């Protein structure tokens, strides 16, 4: 079966592994569309596939018993869904869904585990991503406790900006309120405030990043460390 060449793939993990590592996984890559809202991993349901994104944003969310959700972390073309299977788990308590539509490749978990046994480069690169993702969720915890809604929103917009092409991010206030686990008017007010500073332009269903450096300053150290860790350990992204 023909499969994409390493120079063709846009996923940063697949680009970062060595030639032998790519030879181990390449034949198992099945191209898939990733429409908005697609559930890739369901909480408590055994893993079947991981998804390497070329484009789009995936969101890992955790829910209360009465279905209130908060986002634990996001990833895009720098990562993959379902990495718990690399750590010996068969399922997880979080749900992973597509937040911004995209496309990528899926790989069955059996094929991924076989490929990881064949290639140290592949296994180590994927585990480094897990390490970076844990750093991201740690900063999310810190940010949730310490930051104002405006600061959390700034950090989150920067993380989305890293994972889209261009400066526009298509998101509704409703969606942002779920991701940040705040009431919708808090999102509306926070967007209004950040816009009044000139950092973004907010239109219905769309946010444009105008002054990224100012947003980074405003995020007050809560953005940037996991991203730097990724570049140090794995390679370019964003």
């Amino acid at each position, binding site marked *: 079966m023909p499969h994409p060449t390493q120079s063709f793939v846009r996923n940063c993990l697949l680009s970062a592994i060595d030639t032998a590592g790519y030879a181990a996984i390449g034949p198992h890559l099945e191209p898939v569309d990733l429409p908005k809202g697609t559930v890739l991993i369901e909480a408590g349901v055994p893993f079947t596939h991981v998804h390497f994104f070329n484009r789009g944003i995936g969101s890992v969310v955790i829910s209360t018993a009465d279905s209130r959700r908060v986002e634990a972390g996001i990833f895009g073309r720098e990562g993959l869904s379902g990495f718990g299977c690399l750590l010996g788990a068969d399922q997880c308590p979080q749900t992973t869904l597509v937040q911004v539509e995209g496309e990528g490749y899926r790989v069955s978990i059996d094929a991924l585990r076989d490929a990881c046994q064949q290639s140290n480069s592949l296994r180590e690169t994927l585990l480094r991503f897990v390490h970076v993702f844990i750093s991201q969720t740690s900063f999310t915890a810190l940010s949730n406790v310490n*930051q*104002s*809604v*405006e*600061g959390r929103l700034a950090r989150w917009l920067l993380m989305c900006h890293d994972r889209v092409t261009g400066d526009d991010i298509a998101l*509704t*206030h*409703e969606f942002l309120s779920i991701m940040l686990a*705040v*009431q*919708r*008017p*808090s999102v*509306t*007010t926070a967007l*209004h*405030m950040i816009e009044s500073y000139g950092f973004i332009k907010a239109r*219905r269903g769309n946010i444009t990043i105008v002054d990224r450096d100012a947003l980074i300053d405003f995020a007050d150290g809560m953005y940037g460390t996991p991203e730097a860790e990724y570049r140090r350990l794995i390679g370019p992204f964003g």
Partner: protein
Amino acid sequence: MSRFYLHQQTASGIIEDPDGTEVSDLAAARHEAILAARQLLANAILHGVAPLGAAFQISDEAGQVLLTVPFREALPPHFISID
């Protein structure tokens, strides 16, 4: 279910609610406004951000203002006695 809009009244104008929220009736919309005001006030108190608004105007889809909910009404009654 009906769609209600929680527009925020501020000293410098209205911050519009672009999307609105689906709830059963005006009483449920008022409850949403109270919860939202509490969160805005809490964020302002915890992080030293000035609260932008002083009240929510609850409107229907036609833009008719049905009810104004001052942020003060979001405070539990015993808080009022602080001042």
